[in-house]
C-alpha cells in the first residue's frame, strides 16, 4: 500500500509556471480571493468604457463641441464609424465578454465554495461569500439588460452549450430570486470601514432588487403594480436597516460623498489612488478644465470644457432664481459667461494634474434609493404623503424649495425631475428615461425615440458582433439590424 502511495506521490507535481485548479480552492482565503476576482472583473469592465458608469450623454441636452463620438452617441447612431475606440466609446458594441467572464467567475465561486475542504472555513463564511458572488452576478445581469435588452442567461459554471437570449423580464426575475437567496446571508454592514459600500451588503441586494423591479415595471406593463409593490417593499427593507443616512451638502461634498465609501453609499465600485487604481473612464474628465484640470485641452486656452450642459436643460432642472445647493455646489460658471464652453460640472474631482479620478463609481446611494421608493409609492397611489416626505428629504438637504404640489402624475413627474437633478451624471438618467418611457418625449430628452423605434430596441446597444459570431443562437436587436 505504502508503495503504491509513494508512486502516486511521485506523479503529483505542481506546475511551476501556472497556478492550477489543483492548488486552488483549498481554504477560506482562496475563496475570498476568488470572490474578489468577481469584483475585480466587474471593476475591469466598468472601467473599460465611460459608457458603463455614465451613459448620461446618450439622452443629449449637451453642447458636445467637436467630439464626434459623443455627437453620434447622443444621436443614437450607435453603428456609426465615428463611434470608435477613441475614449473607448465602441466598447459596448465590440464585446460583452468581460461581463460574462465576471458571471463565469461568480458561477465558479457559487459552485466551488461549498466543496472547499477546509474545516476552519465556517458555513456562515461560505454563505456570505456565495451571497456576494450572487449579488455581483445579478448586478452584471442588470447592467447587461439595461445595455442590451434580452440577454442569454448562463448560470452553470461548466455548461458549454449555446443558449439564446432570454427575455429581460425573465432574466431579472431569475436575478431577484437569486438576490433573495443572497440577502439574508449578506452583512448589513462591514465591520471594516474600508469595505463600506464597495462590497455586497443586505442594503445593496435590496436596492438592486428595487431597481430591477422598477425596470421590469417599464417593460411588463401588465404587472407593473406588482413590481412597484415589490420595489416599495425592498426599499423599505433598506431603510429599516438603519445603516444609511443622507450626508449634508456643503463644499466638502466632492471629497466625502462623491469620493465614495460614505455613509450614504449603498454600492460603489472601489477606486482609490492609494491602491494604485484610478478611473479615467468618467464623465467629469470632459466637463472640467483649468485650473481644476491643468491638462485640459487647449479649448479656449485651456479654459473651456469639452462638453457642457445646454442652458435650456440647466434651466429646466434648476429654474433661475430658485435656490438649490446642487446647482451652486456642482457648477462653475454654468451659463458660460467667459466663453461658450467655460462651464464646469464639478461633482467629481481629479486627484492630480492628470485626468485621473479616484472617486468610486457610485452605483447606488441612499438618496437615489429614497427617490426610487418615493416613485414606487407615488405610482402605487395611496402613499402620496410618504412619497412627498421622501422627496422633500432630498430637496431639503439641497436647500431647495419644498414640494407642496399634489400627488398622482404630478408627483411622479416631480420625483423623476428630482432623480435627474440629484443623480446628475451618476449614470441613471438614460435608464430612468427608458424605463419610464419618457425617452419618447422630446421635452424630456433631446435624443428622443419614436414609439416604433423604441419597441424595436432603439434604446439598446447593438449586440456585439463577436457575441453573434461565437453563438449562432444570438439574434441582433431588430432596430440595429437595419
Amino acid at each position: 500500500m505504502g508503495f503504491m502511495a509513494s508512486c502516486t506521490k511521485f506523479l503529483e507535481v505542481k506546475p511551476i509556471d501556472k497556478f492550477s485548479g489543483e492548488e486552488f480552492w483549498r481554504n477560506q482565503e482562496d475563496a475570498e480571493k476568488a470572490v474578489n476576482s468577481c469584483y475585480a472583473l466587474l471593476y475591469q469592465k466598468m472601467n473599460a468604457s465611460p459608457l458603463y458608469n455614465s451613459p448620461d450623454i446618450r439622452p443629449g441636452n449637451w453642447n458636445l463641441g467637436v467630439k464626434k463620438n459623443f455627437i453620434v452617441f447622443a444621436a443614437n447612431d450607435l453603428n456609426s464609424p465615428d463611434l470608435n475606440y477613441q475614449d473607448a466609446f465602441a466598447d459596448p458594441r465590440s464585446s460583452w465578454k468581460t461581463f460574462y467572464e465576471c458571471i463565469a467567475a461568480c458561477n465558479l465561486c457559487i459552485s466551488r465554495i461549498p466543496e472547499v475542504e477546509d474545516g476552519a472555513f465556517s458555513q456562515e463564511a461560505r454563505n456570505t461569500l456565495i451571497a456576494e458572488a450572487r449579488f455581483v452576478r445579478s448586478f452584471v445581469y442588470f447592467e447587461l439588460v439595461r445595455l442590451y435588452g434580452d440577454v442569454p442567461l448562463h448560470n452553470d459554471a461548466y455548461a458549454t452549450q449555446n443558449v439564446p437570449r432570454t427575455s429581460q423580464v425573465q432574466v431579472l426575475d431569475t436575478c431577484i430570486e437569486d438576490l433573495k437567496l443572497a440577502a439574508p446571508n449578506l452583512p448589513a454592514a462591514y465591520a471594516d470601514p474600508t469595505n463600506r459600500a464597495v462590497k455586497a451588503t443586505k442594503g445593496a441586494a435590496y436596492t438592486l432588487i428595487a431597481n430591477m423591479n422598477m425596470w421590469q415595471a417599464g417593460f411588463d406593463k401588465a404587472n407593473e403594480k406588482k413590481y412597484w409593490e415589490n420595489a416599495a417593499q425592498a426599499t423599505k427593507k433598506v431603510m429599516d436597516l438603519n445603516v444609511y443616512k443622507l450626508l449634508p451638502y456643503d463644499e466638502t461634498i466632492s471629497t466625502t460623498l462623491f469620493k465614495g465609501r460614505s455613509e450614504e453609499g449603498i454600492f460603489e465600485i472601489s477606486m482609490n489612488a492609494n491602491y494604485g487604481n484610478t478611473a479615467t473612464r468618467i464623465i467629469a474628465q470632459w466637463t472640467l478644465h483649468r485650473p481644476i484640470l491643468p491638462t485640459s485641452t487647449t479649448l479656449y486656452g485651456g479654459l473651456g470644457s469639452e462638453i457642457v450642459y445646454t442652458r435650456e436643460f440647466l434651466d429646466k432642472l434648476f429654474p433661475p432664481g430658485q435656490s438649490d445647493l446642487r446647482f451652486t455646489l456642482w457648477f462653475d460658471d454654468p451659463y458660460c459667461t467667459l466663453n461658450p464652453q467655460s462651464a464646469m460640472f464639478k461633482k467629481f474631482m481629479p486627484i492630480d494634474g492628470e485626468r485621473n479620478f479616484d472617486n468610486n463609481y457610485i452605483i447606488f446611494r441612499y438618496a437615489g434609493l429614497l427617490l426610487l421608493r418615493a416613485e414606487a409609492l407615488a405610482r402605487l397611489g395611496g402613499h402620496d404623503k410618504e412619497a412627498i416626505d421622501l422627496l422633500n428629504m432630498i430637496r431639503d438637504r439641497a436647500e431647495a424649495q419644498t414640494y407642496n404640489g399634489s400627488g398622482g402624475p404630478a408627483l411622479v413627474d416631480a420625483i423623476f425631475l428630482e432623480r435627474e437633478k440629484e443623480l446628475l451624471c451618476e449614470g441613471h438618467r438614460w435608464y430612468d428615461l427608458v424605463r419610464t418611457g419618457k425617452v419618447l418625449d422630446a421635452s424630456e430628452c433631446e435624443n428622443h425615440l419614436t414609439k416604433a423605434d423604441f419597441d424595436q430596441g432603439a434604446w439598446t446597444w447593438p449586440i456585439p458582433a463577436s457575441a453573434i459570431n461565437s453563438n449562432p443562437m444570438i439574434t441582433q436587436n431588430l432596430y440595429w439590424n437595419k
Partner: protein
Amino acid sequence: MLMCCSQIYAQSSEMELSGTVLDAEKHEVLGGVSIVNVTTQKTIGLTTDKGAFNIKVNKGEKIRFSYIGFMDNIIIVDKENVTVLLQPSSNALKNDVVVVGYQTRTKETVTGAVSIISGKDLQDVPVANVEQLLQGKVAGMNVQNLTGAPGFSGSVSIRGISQLSISGSGDQAQLASNNPLLVIDNVPIDYDGGVTQSMLQPGAATGPLALIPPEDIQSIEVFKDAQAASLYGSRGANGVIVITTKQGNSPTPVINLNSSVFVNLPPQLRPTWGGNLERDYRLYSILNYSRDEQTVRELLDSYQFLTDSLNPFYNNSTDWQSYFYQTTVNTNHNVQISGGNPKLNYKTNLAYQLNQGVLKNTGFEKYSLNMQLNFMPTEKLRVGAQLFGALGQKQRGNGGGLTNNGAGDAFTSSLYPSPSHFIGIPRLEGYENNTDDNSTINLRAYLKVDYEIIHNLRLSSTTSYDYYTDTRDQFKQAFTNNNQTMMYGYIGRRDELNSRNGINYSYNTDPEDMSNGHNFYISAYNEANIRTNNIHIRDVRNGPSDFYWGPRGYSPRFYPGNHYNDANGVNDNGTHASMIYHALSWAGVFSYNYKTKYVADLSYRMDGNSDAGVNKRYSSNPAIGLRWNIEKEPWMQKMEWLDYGSLRATYGINNRSTATVLNTLGFYQIYADYNNQPAIGPDFSILPNPYLEPEKSYQFDVGGDVGILDGRITLSYDTYYKKSYNIVRDFYLPDITGYNKVQVNGGSLVNYGHELVLNFRPFVSKTLEGFQWSISLNGAMNHGILTGLPGDLTLYRQYDDTYHQDFILQVGRNPISNYLYQFNGVYQNTADVPVDPVTGKRARWQTGIQYFQAGDPIWKDVNGDYVISAGDDKFIVGNPDPIFTGGISNTFSYKNFSLNIYMSYLADRTLLNNAMAKRLFDLRYPGLDADDLMGNLYNLGLLDIWSVTNPGGTYPGIVDYYHSRGTASYLPDQTLFSEDGSYFKINQITLSYRFQGFRFMKKTGLHALSAYTTLYNVGIFSGYSGPNPETVSRLGRDDINGYPAALSFTVGLRAQF
C-alpha cells in the same frame, strides 16, 4: 544453406583460436562480427575492424559467427588459426538483430513491422542532420527535408499524420508534431529535443539527430506498428526509432578516420525579370492601364526609379538573390578509437563538422564526443557506461525554423541600386551584420548494470541522464530594424532523468538450438522519468547604440517589450514556459516460440504521468503479435527456391494521456486587486474539462516476408489499419460562457495503407572482382481519412488571415484540406462572362466594382449569384499529406570501385505556390510603393498569360492593373496556384574506391583506405512550377522565404590504422 569452410572434428581441450573473418563475396574483412559459443550459449567475442579475432575455446566446441546482412557460419573448433568466410545473407531475417523494447532478438522471431537501416548506408555524405539521410529508406516513414538551412530539421511521420491541431497561419501554419520517439543506445529521447526547445518555431530545434555523427551509427531500427512500439508506451504512439552506436571490439586499438571536404552550391533560384524587362513592364502597365491622366502623373512622379532611366543611380538591373547566396567550402572529420574484448571494451568517437549555408550568415558547426565502456567482470555481471557530449552552433541569419526571412527579402525590385560603399541596404546589411546565434549543448550519460542471479534469470538496471542547454542570441542593428536596435536572448535548460529497472527470464528446452524446442522469455520492468524545463527570455528594444548589446541604457519607451511572454509567463504560442514532469511506467512482456516456427508476443504497459488529470493517472498499452515462419514447415522443405517465408500479424492499443492538471482543473490568474484586496480568479483562456480521456489509437498490421533464389530476391510486405480516436481538439465556446475554449475528445482519423520493400540482385558475380548490382526499392501508400470531429461536427474551418487559404477538416475526406476558389480557366471573350439577368451586369468578385471581362479568371460561382465571394463560392480541395512515398537505391561494384545511386520519391500531394502567387498578386500595384510591395517581378515569360495578343492564354491577364485589382485575378486562395507536388529526387550519388595492396599502406600502418566522392541533393524532377516541391511547409505552402536545399559536392577519405 549455411556454408562452412572449416569443419574439422577434434577432441575437447582449452586452446586459443585466432583468425580473420571475411566477406565471402567481396573478400573484405568484416569487423564487429559477433562470436558465440553455441555449446555454452555465451557470447565470447567480436572481430576487430581488421576482421581479426582471438578467443579461448575448447576443442570440438561449436562457434557461431554472425553479422548483420550475412548468414551465420558455425565452425567446430579444431585448429588454432582459421579464416572464416561469411556469405552475404539471402535470409536477412534470421541474422538481423533487433532491439525490441530493450530486448535483443533475431528478426525472425520479431512479430512487428520493423525496418532496419545499417550504419553503412549512412556514410560518405556529410549532412548536418542524420534525419536527411533517412529519407526514402524506410517504407512508410515519410521524411521531408523542408528546409535547406543547415542544422534545422524537417518533418518526419510514420504511417500518416495522427494529429489535427494547426497553429499559425499562412506559410507559417504548422501541424502539431507527429514525431516518433527516439531511443539512442537504450535512452529514450524526445525527437526534436522537446517542443519548447524549438523556440516557438517548428524545425528550429537542434535536436539529437543533428548532433549525432552518422559515422558513429551502427544501425537504426524503425518500429512502425503498435505491437513493436507498445513497449515504449505512450511516447511510442507515433512509432519508434532506435539508434545503436558502434562498440569497441578489437584487442589492439583501432583508429578510424573519416575526413572530407564538401562544397555547398546555391540551388536554382526563383525566376525573376530584371532591369529593362521590369521597367518596361511596369511603365507599360501604368501608362496604358491607369484610369486617368492624373493617376499616371502621380505614379510616375512617385517612382523615379521607373522614369529616370537615364540617371545612372536608377539605371540598375540588380540580381538581389546573388547578393544573398554564396558558395561555401566546408569540412567534416570523424575519428574513432576503439578496442577491447568482450570482457572490457571501449570506444571513443570524436566528430567535427563545419557546414555553412548557401545563404549568407547561416550555417551550422558541431562538435561531438561519444565515449562508451563495456565491462564484464564476471560471466554474471555486465556493466556498460556511455557519455555523449555535443555542441551545435547554428547561425540563423535573419531567419526562423523552416523559413529564412532574408531569402524572401532578397525579392526587392531589380531597379534599386546595388549595395556599395555609399549605399547601405538595410535588408542586406542586416543579413551580413546582424547576429542570430543558436547554440545547443547536449550531455547524455547512461549506466547499465545487468546481473544474472541464477541461470537465465537476469536483473537489469539502466539509468540515463540527458541534459540540454539551448541559447539564442539575437542582435539587430537599428539601421536594419526600423531604427530600433533589438536584442533577444533565450536560455532554455532541459533535462531528463530516466531510470529503468527490470527482471527477465528465458527458458529454452533445447539451449543449444532454439529452432528445436519451446522457447520462453518473460520480462517485467518499470520506468521512472523526470523531466524539467526552464526557459528565460530577455527582449530589449531600442538600445542606445548599434555597437554594444543592451540591456545597458535601453530606452524605457518600448519597455516592457517582451511580447513572447504574457503576464503569466506563458509563451504566446501557448507552450509552457517552464515545467516539471514526472512519469512512471510498468511493463510486462511474455514471448514464446516453438522451434522459432510459431511465435507469439504478448505485452502490456501502463504509463502514468504528473500532467495527467487526477482521475486518469494511468493509461494502458496492450499488444499482441503472432508470427509463422512457413519455410520451417516440413512440407515446405521441397521448395528449394524458397529461402524463407513468413506471415506476421499484430494488434495493439496505444493510449496517450492528454489530460493535464491545467486542462482538467483549469488554471487561475491574479487580477488587479479589488479594494486593495488580492483577487485570484479563473483564467478564461481554457475551460477545465474534468472528463477528458486519453487520446487512443489501435492498429492492425498484417505482413509477410519472402526470400527466394538464394537471396536474389527478397520481399517484405505490410498492410495496416490504424485508427486514432479521442483526439483532443480545441472547442471554441460562445462568449457567454466567459471562456475562449475547452479541450474535448472527439477527433478521430484513420490511416490505412500498404508498404512494400523489394531487394534484388540482377547481377551476382561468382568472382570477387566481378560486377555486382543490387537494387533496393521501397514504397508506401498511405490514405488518411478524418472520421470524426468533436461535438458531432462534420466540418471545421480554420480561418487563415494571411492569404485566406483556410484549412478545412471535413469528416470523410483526407484529414486536412484547403479551401479555395475553383479556377476554371480564363474568359476568352467578354461575351463569355455570365450576366446577372436581374441587374444586367456581368459577374464580379465580391465587393469589387470591376466586372469580369476577357482575360479574367473563370471562378466557379457555386450559389449562382453572379458574385464570387469568400463566404459561399469556395471549394474544399487538396491534400497536403502525400499518398505515396518511397526510395530506390542502386549499388554497383566492380573491382575496387563501387557506385551508389540513391533516389527518393513522393506522389500525390497538393502544394500551394504562394511564392509565385504573392509576386503575381502584388502586380495589381505596378509601382514600387509601400513596404510590402517592393517586390521584384516574376519572370512573366514563363507563364502563358492572357493578353489581347495572346487570347488563348491560360493564366489571367495581369497588365491591366486597375482592372485586375478590382477582380483580384491573382488572389492566392484559388486553385490556379494549387499544384501537384509529386517529385522524383536523386538524393545522392557516391563513387568510392578502395585502395588495396599498395606499399605505402603497409609503411604507414594503414589497414584500409578508401577515397570517395559524393554528390548530395543532386536533382529533383517535378512538374511543379516552383524551384523545389520539397522545401515547402509541412502543410504544403511554398513560402517565398523558404530556405532552398543546396547541392553539395564532397571529396573524402576513410582510413583505418
